[in-house]
């Protein structure tokens, strides 16, 4: 039996060691890809054994060293982080298969740098997931921004450069201007930044100061894409699709909403927030973001752009759920992190498969494509169901909890927002599926026959689509983790 400390350390260092191995194998593509896959598999095998411990009520911890007096780089595996780490490391395997198909299928340049940065990004995501205090979380949060920058600007074109500027500008800007002062202030007030059940700020701040600090945190965590600091996410879509799929639908954005939930539950404490004025303004902004992002998505013709705005809306589901501060809605927040991850990665996988096989990027060009790429578009349909929140897809479960929480709290405005969003989601996803399967292909397309994307990509997107369905029928693990989180 390997000790839990070893497992945590291994989970953090494996992707870094893997990145080194990938760099060394740069001249031998097959060996390099093997290094990625082996690292990903080993990572999951290190993360998974932590799950039974967490479910049994343990909180495995590891303290590395003190960076500043009283501020250690420390890790504690609690239920929410466990969930995030499982999602990220599990999907990394699938994503790696997909990446290999995509990067080779499109003859991309600088593949070694791509895989190295990807592995480092996963390391940063695991660091965020297991962070035992806000300080550690902040360190890995900034690291994640920096190592994903070369991925976003992978193509090196002027468009990529402009996208990279927006990406870095907003993410570094918000984290430095809002999050860092919030972190220092938390430390100054509480004398600690440890994530503690029930929060660490109870009774230490006036109502106004507490609201101000919450404001700093919520807008400081730019990765959660709360409006008006959401522009970086569409900008990041210039990246190769595997990056959009794993990082900008799962690792990076989930790191954002994950941090939001962590901060609300373990720094402020739901009870403290309720007692000291709550977070109504946050509910309002999250609600606004959901609706506004959906409307933009409705008008976007570029498929990846539509998916990006859909992500912005879905991220705010999590923020909205956390801001309601009821046990049911907090559970919904945790569930939605997992549910949205598998659904949205499927959608991006499909978008990348369409690009690779048919070189199409716009929704208006997709007429009849479902007949040529039935697996891809079938998976897309499942992902779309999950986004809308219909059974039998994972998104239904989290939306159910979210609605129950909102109704229980008597927040009818929230219920209205959720229903409107459901309609809007249906409004921009159903037409895609309809075009793909029920419209005849355009005459021009008849001359350019193509089939499915490379096998590896199809395998990957089918797997995640299956996972989307599986999470609906067997939501046991995420649910148990969510309940653990609320139980303290």
């Amino acid at each position, binding site marked *: 039996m390997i000790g839990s400390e070893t497992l945590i350390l291994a989970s953090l260092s494996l992707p870094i060691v893997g990145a080194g191995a990938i760099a060394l194998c740069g001249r031998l593509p097959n060996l390099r890809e093997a290094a990625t896959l082996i690292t990903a598999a080993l990572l999951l095998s290190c993360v998974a054994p932590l799950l039974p411990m967490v479910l049994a009520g343990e909180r495995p911890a590891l303290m590395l060293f003190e960076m500043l007096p009283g501020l250690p780089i420390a890790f504690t595996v609690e239920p929410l982080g466990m969930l995030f780490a499982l999602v990220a490391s599990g999907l990394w395997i699938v994503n790696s298969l997909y990446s290999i198909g995509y990067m080779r299928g499109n003859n991309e340049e600088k593949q070694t740098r791509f895989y190295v940065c990807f592995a480092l990004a996963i390391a940063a995501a695991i660091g965020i997931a297991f962070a035992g205090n806000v300080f550690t979380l902040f360190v890995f949060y900034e690291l994640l921004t920096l190592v994903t920058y070369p991925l976003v600007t992978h193509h*090196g074109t002027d468009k990529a450069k402009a996208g990279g500027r927006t990406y870095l500008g907003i993410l570094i800007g918000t984290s430095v201007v809002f999050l860092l002062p919030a972190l*220092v202030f938390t430390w100054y007030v509480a004398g600690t930044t440890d994530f503690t059940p029930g929060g660490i700020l109870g009774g230490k701040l006036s109502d106004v100061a507490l609201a101000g600090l919450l404001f700093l945190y919520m807008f400081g965590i730019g990765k959660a894409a709360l409006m008006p600091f959401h522009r970086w996410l569409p900008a990041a879509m210039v990246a190769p699709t595997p990056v959009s799929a794993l990082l900008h639908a799962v690792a990076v954005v989930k790191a954002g909403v994950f941090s939001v939930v962590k901060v609300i539950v373990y720094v402020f404490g739901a009870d403290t927030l309720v007692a000291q004025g709550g977070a109504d303004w946050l509910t309002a902004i999250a609600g606004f973001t959901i609706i506004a992002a959906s409307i933009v998505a409705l008008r976007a013709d570029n498929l990846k752009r539509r998916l990006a705005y859909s992500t912005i809306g879905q991220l705010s589901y999590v923020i909205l759920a956390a801001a309601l501060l009821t046990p049911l809605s907090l559970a919904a927040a945790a569930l939605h992190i997992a549910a949205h991850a598998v659904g949205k990665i499927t959608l991006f996988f499909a978008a990348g498969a369409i690009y690779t096989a048919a070189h199409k990027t716009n929704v208006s060009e997709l007429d009849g494509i479902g007949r040529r790429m039935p697996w891809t578009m079938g998976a897309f349909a499942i992902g779309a169901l999950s986004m809308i929140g219909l059974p039998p897809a994972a998104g239904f479960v989290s939306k159910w909890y979210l609605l129950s929480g909102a109704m229980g709290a008597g927040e009818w405005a929230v219920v209205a927002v959720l229903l409107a969003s459901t309609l809007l989601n249906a409004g921009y996803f159903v037409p895609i599926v309809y075009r793909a399967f029920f419209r005849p292909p355009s005459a021009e397309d008849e001359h350019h026959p193509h089939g499915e994307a490379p096998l590896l990509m199809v395998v990957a997107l089918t797997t995640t689509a299956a996972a989307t369905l599986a999470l609906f029928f067997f939501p046991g693990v995420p649910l148990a983790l969510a309940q653990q989180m609320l139980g303290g």
Partner: protein
Amino acid sequence: MSFAEHLPVLQVVVPLVSAPLAVLFRDRLAAFLLVLAGSWAAFAISILLWLQVRESGIISYAIGSWPAPWGIEYRVDALSSLVLMLVSGVGAVVLPYCRSSIVREIRPDTHYLFYAMFALCLTGLLGITITGDAFNLFVFLEISSLSSYVLIALGKDRRALVASYQYLIMGTIGATFIVIGVGLLYVKTGTLNLADMGVRLQDMTSHRPVLAALAFLTVGISLKLALFPLHQWLPNAYAYAPSAVSAFLAATATKVSVYALLRFYFSVFGETAIFKQLPMEDLMLVLALAGMFVASTVAIFQNNLKRLFAYSSVAQIGYIALGISFDSVTGLTATIVHLVNHAVTKGSLFLLLGAVMASMGGVTLARVQGVGRVMPVTTFGIVLCGLSLIGVPGTAGFVSKWYLILAALEKGQWWLVFLIVLSSLLAVVYVWRFVEAAYFRAPRADLLQAREASLGLAIPAWILVGATIWFGVDTSVTVGSAAAAANMLLGVTP
């Protein structure tokens, strides 16, 4: 008397002696070896002194056994031991770099003179730091200044002569102001010993000459440390000096001046009523903020990387001054930590730029475009240093920023917190100008053959880059010493 007791004087004498010996030998290899031995010995001595101070507190050494306040006292405490270690450490790393670097930049028959000047400059800077005597401090300041004028003038670019001349004029004005200040203090107190001066000034409540002395010293030292708006000499001096000299001066000269300012402010005037009569804190605050924003903004529009990072130095000196303006333990800790952190960051940055200069023949943005492709390792090092300038966690710069923000919060000044973080965003802009030029553009056709710099340049540079990262991860040396020094300066027992 044992050997260990004489360490304070050896700290200065060893590099001092190596200078005339280097001239006597008239051979560049012999000169290099002598000065190298001198600087490494100085570094070893400074480490021993630092350990000794940490063990047993302040060391006082009477030169020629003439007791203070009549004789000259050398005084090593928490602050000076840290600065000594910084200066001699940077010297010890930069010297081996010089050997590979100046071959390209300086006429071979003058190399032995270069080493002699380098040794003198090092001596002067160490002397300023270790002495407890106001006039002795002035003498060492002149030694270091005069030798640095020569060092800057040795630059290959002919504009180095103008830059050196500019610095000569400004530096001389500064030195004159300092000597006037010291003279006034001597007239009023009858002593030149800094500690003694501090005690005697306590009784005086309102004396115009003392106020004048404070003003002269502030302006004079601020000229030397390039506090905005007295920084005009700095960008040209750094830009056109030989690479090794830019790195050495950027890492040490202004830092030692900061040390001198701290000495006068807190050890001499700190306890006096006169100091409290003047709005010194507000003055520092305004100048610091102006420096942070104006110099960073100017840096954004520079096309020569050495000038760009020279303006960034002026901005970073703003942070250092900001810490002083808080007049609190946390604020001074921030100042002292940043003094060290910025020294290693900027030192390594200029060493790496020297490597780029050697391979690509210049450091204008137009010339270095695509450098990420031909010199990936060096470029990555520059990016790491850039991240430290921004203050990304995991680099030395983050630690400094942390303490500055904490100091502002302690005072309850949220507006200052936001100004600090906003100014660091300006650093993102000027660092990213380099990043985009280095990675998103193709190298110039004639520079495609450029290769990574030789190990003689790379190893010293990467030692300092390593220190930049190390001080961002393990802060026990920097923060520990800085906090001890800050407590000592403010007379607080932790």
